[in-house]
């Protein structure tokens, strides 16, 4: 479903963010990408979203080379990939409800679908009571739950989570990971980039370990070992 083919991303001649990375992610997998800061986790996710272009190599989403997708194709691909970020990246001028609805509007859903699905998504993340709060009125954990609802509301095939718990306390961290597991159980592929030992070890799922832009380990039921 996701295929990185000998991908390198070189920002300057002396430092390569990602070097010659090849791996495949199958549907319904829950993959953790681990490594120190700067190991290349975020870069890999940005490459998949076509937020960055690779210096060499190709990135495929299903059969589409995401960096050769046309102007019209790229939004279509992105609607099938939900993203969650460490800094939440909610739209500050929109309420929780509107943030989630925006992803559906952008994906050209009808008003009826939006009115039906957004409350369901809010319910999934347990924020029905805070639908009309603006991001600055929400706690960190709540913001991240809105972000998850936004990422999930279009029923994407994949969810990319880049350090989603980096700014959260242990209780919120557990809740967020719980949500991701729940979403994975509903059949969505989840790619989680993190450097949190406890999460990775408690998941007992596939772990890809990165070091200095290269894959050093890829274990089916891995642990965080660096």
């Amino acid at each position: 479903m996701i295929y990185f083919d000998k991908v390198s991303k070189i920002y300057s001649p002396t430092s390569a963010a990602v070097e010659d990375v090849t791996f495949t992610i199958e549907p319904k997998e829950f993959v953790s990408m681990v490594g120190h800061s700067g190991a290349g986790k975020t870069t890999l996710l940005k490459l998949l979203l076509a937020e960055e272009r690779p210096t060499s190599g190709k990135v495929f989403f299903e059969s589409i080379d995401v960096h050769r997708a046309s102007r019209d194709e790229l939004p279509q691909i992105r609607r099938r990939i939900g993203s969650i970020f460490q800094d939440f990246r909610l739209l500050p001028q929109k309420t929780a409800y509107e943030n989630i609805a925006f992803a559906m509007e952008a994906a050209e859903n009808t008003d009826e679908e939006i009115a039906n699905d957004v409350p369901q998504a809010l319910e999934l993340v347990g924020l029905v009571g805070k639908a009309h709060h603006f991001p600055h009125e929400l706690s960190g954990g709540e913001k991240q739950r809105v972000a998850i609802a936004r990422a999930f509301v279009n029923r994407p095939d994949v969810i990319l989570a880049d350090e989603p718990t980096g700014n959260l306390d242990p209780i919120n961290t557990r809740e967020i990971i719980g949500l991701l597991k729940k979403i994975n159980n509903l059949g969505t592929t989840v790619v989680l980039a993190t450097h949190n030992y406890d999460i990775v070890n408690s998941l007992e799922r596939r772990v890809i370990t990165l070091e200095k832009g290269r894959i050093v380990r890829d274990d089916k039921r891995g642990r965080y070992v660096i």
Partner: protein
Amino acid sequence: MSATTSAAVTSYSLKMKNVKLRRVIIAGVVNFWRNGWVSLAAALVMVLALFMIGSLLFSNVLLTSALSRIEEQVDISVYFSADAAEEEILNVRNALSQLPQVESAVYVSKEEALEKFRARHSANALITQSIDELGNNPLQASLNVRAKSPDQYEVIARFLEAGAYSSLIDKINFFQNQVVIERLSSVLAAARAAGLGVTLVLSLIAMLVVFNTIRLAIYTSRDEISVMRLVGASRRYVRGPFVIEGVLYGVFSAIITMVIFYPVTLWLGPATERFFGGPNIFQYYLSNFIQIFLLLLAVGIAIGVLSSSVAIRRYLKI
């Protein structure tokens, strides 16, 4: 079967287009409202630009009317010697009227000239008495010639000087007024050119300031724009609300500018009327209200939409 399906698809995509347009407009209006201070700042800067454009419009009206008044007052008088017969003078007039440069040529007989002279000095007993004392009419018959444009008087004067009529003519006051007339016509031409140049330069500066303000407003939204793109919004769908905001800057600034012009022209109206002898600009403002408003509205919306579309381009690249 397939025909009905494709018809259904077409009607669906048409409906979706309307839905998208509605969403874009609503999002633009909501953003404009929620970004209150930024919107206000951008609209006020645009008010300055529109106010300048409006002021230029008003001053152009005054200048044009003042210039045409001055031009109307420029003419030359051809004085004929005392022994020139009326018939001959009328011949000269007819010849002049044939010239393409001549707007009009009016004959003033000796008697008319005297009447006018008396009328002008009727309050002055000394002059009337001396005229009566003189017995005969000391004034000359003349032709008042008006050219189509001030720079053509010289051609007309030369025509009279060199032509067959020169023996009838005593003097042409063009050569006395020549310096003044030439200077005036060059001043008029320069004033027009300068007015146009200043208009263009000031408008350009105003538009650049507006453009930069809108660019700054969009710069503050650059993170949001990238989030919208990453969530899967198309370029057009992200750009739409910003363009609508640009339209709203234009609409609000046009309204504010028109409101400001009311007291300003009311206050300046009498003074400009006295100084330029032209129309009262308050009257002009009232009678051309809709045209001025539409002009400012069009300029404001054009600047707003153009600035927004150009400024957002670089952030859409993601």
